[in-house]
């Protein structure tokens, strides 16, 4: 990336060739991911793999499966947190929970759940609302490595101070430490929090809809996609939501720049919670 005769147009061609090769050879389709952040992560990998050009990286990735594994981990951003963006959970508690109370059974889909922090947060919220027994949560991600972590429900103990703060700002009024056991540097979350959660692999780019849901959360996942893939996923989420179902997006995402805007109304202004109305 810092070679003197750096040619950005050529680099984009090389990136396309690399992604094409990865999709055909390994079946992971990154061809419609957002270019700016993709480039950043490709450059990081080039540095780590000591590849001078994207073509040199392609050679390694295609011929060395171990290099592909590292590349896959480097390409997806898995950073997440419990009760990330507390205002969202507070709005969910005050505005969505009353809607859900009217349902005898509630199906929830977390698409792109990463290591699960968001899913456990939702389980806690639903438990405190007295709704958890009526819920079934489907938590999916394309990356099996993060899913196995999510299934364990063990998070770093050092994070608990931040998460407790988030939990309280999200309207939590219990003692957050009731939900985990501290063991060395780990916080092991209570296994019963997992009772209503099913973790499974699902790729939003290549797999279809698998159920009908009352709530779909897909937060901070589509920011890594380009417009084409984003529209594809919005269609998939729309088709997976029941009428009057609730869609939750990340704080910096909105339906504004998508063609599905007219099918939803905003439940709480600014909190990225939408209700399907047509």
């Amino acid at each position: 990336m810092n070679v003197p005769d750096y040619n950005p147009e050529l680099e984009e061609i090389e990136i396309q060739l690399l992604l094409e090769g990865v999709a055909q050879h390994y079946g992971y389709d990154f061809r419609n991911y957002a270019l700016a952040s993709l480039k950043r992560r490709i450059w990081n990998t080039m540095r780590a793999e000591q590849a001078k050009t994207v073509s040199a990286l392609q050679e390694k990735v295609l011929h060395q499966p171990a290099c592909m594994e590292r590349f896959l981990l480097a390409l997806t951003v898995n950073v997440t947190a419990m009760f990330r963006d507390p205002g969202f959970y507070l709005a969910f508690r005050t505005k969505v929970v009353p809607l859900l109370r009217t349902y005898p059974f509630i199906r929830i889909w977390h698409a792109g759940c990463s290591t699960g922090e968001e899913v456990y947060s939702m389980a806690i919220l639903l438990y405190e609302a007295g709704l958890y027994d009526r819920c079934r949560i489907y938590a999916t991600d394309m990356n099996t490595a993060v899913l196995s972590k999510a299934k364990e429900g063990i998070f770093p103990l050092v994070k608990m101070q931040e998460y407790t703060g988030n939990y309280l700002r999200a309207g939590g009024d219990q003692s957050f430490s009731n939900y985990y056991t501290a063991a060395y540097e780990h916080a092991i979350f209570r296994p019963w929090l997992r009772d209503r959660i099913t973790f499974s692999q699902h790729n939003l780019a290549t797999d279809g809809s698998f159920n009908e849901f009352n709530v779909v959360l897909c937060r901070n996942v589509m920011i890594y996609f380009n417009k084409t893939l984003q529209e594809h996923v919005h269609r998939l989420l729309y088709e997976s939501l029941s009428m009057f179902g609730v869609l939750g997006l990340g704080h910096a995402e909105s339906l504004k720049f998508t063609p599905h805007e007219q099918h939803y109304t905003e439940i709480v202004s600014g909190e990225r919670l939408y209700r399907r109305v047509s």
Partner: protein
Amino acid sequence: MTFDLIVVGASLGGLHALEAIFAALPSDFIVPLAVVQHRHRDSDDTLRSVLQRAARLPIYEAEDKQPIEPGAIYLAPADYHLLVERGSFALSTEGPVNHARPSIDVLFESAAAAYEARLLGVVLTGASADGAQGLALIKARGGCTVVQDPASAECRVMPEAAIAATTVDHVVPLIEIVPLLTKLCQSSWKVGL
């Protein structure tokens, strides 16, 4: 020289510097600005609304895929990296870079790749070295680089780090930044009109 975008990085002391710059920018300033001000992950809309009170141009917190429009100022939202594609914004929750999310280097690096010589980068006051590598990259891609004179900065660490990282085109005191930007962007102006 014509510019399609101005990227600005500020940290400690940035609120006052940005207020001064936005207050001085004329309402017909056409080249859009993308701004990273280091901020706490929980901060709300306050930064935007405080800055908006000083500014004549409209200020937005950038959303994912938002088109970059002329005559507007875009702020990186709290707890996200702001990146630039050609003509629109992209966001990322990747871990902090230089202990910061949003990070100035991430914005500058992506903007340099997207706009090359049509990019103007500005580093303001701050107590970190964020932005230095990014500014060097803007320079390497043929873009124009501006740094606030450390003597006029509330905190001189960040401007000094930027000056040490590359041969900066213009080092000017805070009050001269807007006159300089106006002069540099004059031809972009005519093209835009």
